[in-house]
């Protein structure tokens, strides 16, 4: 399955791109994170502290144990600071 992975804020800066296409057989967000963290040092650093990480699946907030079935777009970012 091919998934668009998006990064925002300091995750984007650590990884160096704001978007990448990943071919994966990960079933959950946690499995996808394990694959992404293995790509290179920037990815490893970005995914080092999961407590300060949030995830959205197809633009809806999700959890690390959420299933990736039928997901086309996964976004990772730090806690939001809008308003």
């Amino acid at each position: 399955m091919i998934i668009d992975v998006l990064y925002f804020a300091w995750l984007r800066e650590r990884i160096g791109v704001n978007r990448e296409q990943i071919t994966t057989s990960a079933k959950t967000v946690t499995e996808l994170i394990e694959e992404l963290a293995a790509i290179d040092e920037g990815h490893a650093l970005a995914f080092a502290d999961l407590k300060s990480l949030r995830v959205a699946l197809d633009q809806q907030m999700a959890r690390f144990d959420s299933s990736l079935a039928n997901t086309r777009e996964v976004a990772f970012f730090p806690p939001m600071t809008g308003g």
Partner: protein
Amino acid sequence: MRLSVQESAFDLGAETKAFANGAAGAGAIVTFTGLVRDNSGQVLGMEIEHYPGMTERAISDMMDEAQARFALTDALVIHRFGVLAPAEAIMMVATAASHRSDAFAAAEFLMDYLKSRAPFWKKELGPDGQTWVKAKEEDEAALTRW
């Protein structure tokens, strides 16, 4: 109800006046405006990143929820992204209702959710570099009151 996620500046006076003119029948209007703080030259500006698409979807859901919970006759959310100078308006919320308690509660509800659940990330541009604004625990805690 109107939502605008935009890069350009907005005119707080004109937006407030237009909202009030359109709120026929309402007795109470509350607005909230967030400004880039100007801490005596320590902040040179702010850069706001967002998640196009999800931003609009998340805020629309919040506005629907606010209208369902409170007896709103109208609501407006404007939120900017991009680079802002000190003292510029970052965003505004306006709510209209028959009674002041609903207008106040809906504006606070929308603000609490915008702070922690709308995909925006602020970076302060200071004299010594750029710093991502940290999410505050009190902002996350504020959601528990709703």
